[in-house]
């Protein structure tokens, strides 16, 4: 009998442990690097003082050291690195400087993460307008890549910025906004840290709302119509996400969509909702692990994703909680392999034909290990010089498992360039924060203002104080 009693005690304590474990899983893992670009820097500087950052720039000017600016370093094409340069780590520069609940604005230093802002504004019933689906990135980093997310009603990140302060190559602080220093403003947002150091940003916020989740399965050739009729035309749908199958049975055919529909407000203002912490990640991590292995694994992974999406249909979630999704299950450590992302934008109306062509391109690439494609929507927006949304687009984020040896890099590069060619054929573009597989010509075609962008860089930073590998590879 004693042993059953002991077992009972054990099981109880097991649940206590799991409970606290889930509760405390707060800190996101920051180290990224897809390990394709190990770079030796001269020094790493980090500080929480504006004066010291200014001093770093002045010292670099007199020593003629290039500076690469870094946040969470989740970009994958050397945007935060430069050989023998100074790496300026902005993470500790993360204070919240001002907040106005009435005006719905917040001013934060650029090293703060979206999570920091959410934690701060959630009690006031406020939420972000636009951010990535994950909240682990710094504000400065997200602005520098002009990120977008699940929201389909508030445009791009650039639209939510009231103003920002930039420390330029001369060590001077400038205020930029759509009205002030407009040219520089439009270059800095989506400027990959090439124009100076974003010090702080004033963002416009919106109300936190409750959403009901609707999920549905459909075929890829119905998707554009479905989106036009049921999503964008229905004002109550505030956020949208889709995935397309990579299972051998329904490769690039079957899809599911998840819509977040605003509920009628019951009381004004809404009670602040508890911010959700990351739940146990072992389960998604396990199924993603299977998908890496073989076709059967990809079949299982897709079925699990479908089952999961169906299971959340009808659930209710707050806006803030939608915008803090789990990403840690994607953390992957393998001695010889790594995982890279690609993101392609294709006009909504061309989606069906584009997917058919993409399928054709990938059909014989048996060694190309594509694990997941997530689809979001970006509205036409040409405010940033390097704007990817030349019209209303679907964005496809591809997760690819690849080797780190020269042959694997070459093979993946070939497939990626082929996919980008297909994307460009349909009037699309691709996202710049990822590994430097695309050619200069592809960049120029995807971004018609590429030349202007690099000319502006020359104009505002003639001595090349702010440098990174991306610039080195693509300047033209």
């Amino acid at each position, binding site marked *: 009998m004693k*042993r059953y009693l002991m077992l009972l005690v*054990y099981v109880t304590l*097991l649940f206590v*442990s799991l409970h*606290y474990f889930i509760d405390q899983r707060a800190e996101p893992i920051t180290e990224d690097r897809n390990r394709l670009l190990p770079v030796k820097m001269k020094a790493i500087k980090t500080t929480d003082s504006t004066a010291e950052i200014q001093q770093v720039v002045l010292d670099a000017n007199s020593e003629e050291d290039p500076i690469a600016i870094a946040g969470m370093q989740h970009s994958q094409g050397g945007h935060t690195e430069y050989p023998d340069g100074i790496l300026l780590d902005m993470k500790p520069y993360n204070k919240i400087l001002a907040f106005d609940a009435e005006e719905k604005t917040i001013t934060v230093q650029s090293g703060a993460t979206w999570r920091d802002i959410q934690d701060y504004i959630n009690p006031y019933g406020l939420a972000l307008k636009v951010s990535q689906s994950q909240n682990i990135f710094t504000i400065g980093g997200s602005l520098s890549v002009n990120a977008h997310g699940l929201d389909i009603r508030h445009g791009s990140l650039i639209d939510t910025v009231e103003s920002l302060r930039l420390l330029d190559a001369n060590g001077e602080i400038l205020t930029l906004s759509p009205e002030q220093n407009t040219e520089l403003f439009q270059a800095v947002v989506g400027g990959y840290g090439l124009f100076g150091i974003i010090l702080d940003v004033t963002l416009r916020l919106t109300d936190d709302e409750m959403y009901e989740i609707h999920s549905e399965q459909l075929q890829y050739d119905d998707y554009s119509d479905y989106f036009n009729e049921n999503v964008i035309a229905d004002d109550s749908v505030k956020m949208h996400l889709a995935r397309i199958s990579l299972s051998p049975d329904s490769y690039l055919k079957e899809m599911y969509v998840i819509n977040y529909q605003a509920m009628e407000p019951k009381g004004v203002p809404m009670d602040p909702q508890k911010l959700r912490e990351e739940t146990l990640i*072992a389960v998604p*991590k396990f199924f993603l692990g*299977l998908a890496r292995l073989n076709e059967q694994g990809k079949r299982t992974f897709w079925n699990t994703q479908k089952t999961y999406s169906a299971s959340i249909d009808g659930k209710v979630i707050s806006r803030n909680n939608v915008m803090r999704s789990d990403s840690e299950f994607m953390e992957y*450590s393998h001695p010889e392999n790594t995982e890279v992302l690609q993101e392609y934008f294709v006009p909504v109306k061309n989606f069906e034909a584009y997917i058919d062509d993409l399928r054709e391109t990938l059909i014989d690439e048996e060694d190309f290990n594509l694990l997941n494609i997530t689809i979001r929507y970006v509205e036409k927006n040409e405010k940033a010089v390097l704007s990817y949304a030349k019209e209303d687009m679907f964005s496809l984020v591809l997760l690819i498992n690849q080797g780190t040896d020269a042959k694997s890099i070459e093979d993946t590069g070939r497939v990626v360039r082929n996919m980008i060619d297909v994307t460009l054929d349909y009037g699309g573009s691709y996202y710049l924060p990822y590994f430097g597989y695309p050619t200069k010509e592809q960049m120029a075609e995807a971004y018609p203002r590429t030349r202007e962008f690099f000319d502006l860089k020359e104009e505002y930073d003639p001595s090349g104080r702010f440098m990174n590998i991306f610039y080195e590879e693509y300047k033209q």
Partner: protein
Amino acid sequence: MNYKRFIVYQGTIGMASSMIFPFYILMLRNVGNSYSQFGWAYGLFALTAAICYPIIGKIADKAGDQLLLSIYSWGMALILLVFPLANEIWHVYILQILMGVLGAVQKNSEKTVLARHVVKETAGKEIGNYHIWTSIAAAAAIIGTGYLVDFFTISSIFYIASALFAWSGFSILKKDKTLSEFQA
């Protein structure tokens, strides 16, 4: 507890501890960050074990091996529930001290059971056989866990190992007619 069950038991706990020990270093890297902290963590483990051996030795002859082995199993099962929650280096130090005590319990009991069981003349062969099975279990666990870490998180490994220890503790407490065989 008969001898066969003892072998199965040792195989199980060998598996469970092999799952965590080589990979435990990954956890330490997250919590601590210097070689001296590594040194202290393992040093404390060995030091507490050293202090405990004389006491454990005496208890073993009075209380019996079965009880000590079950204390070890349940103790480890519970400690491993705390590991995923550790986030400071001093948490790790305390856990290492507790594991030092339990490690000493296990090492001593393993040897006393063997000493009470084997016949002097064939001791070499018997202990050799004993090590074959426990080592195979340990090897399988280490290799398997290497893959598991790819699929699960390091914290899940602690929970899995904890469950294995709990199971071993549960099975070792099973009443057995040949129990007296091992009582001095």
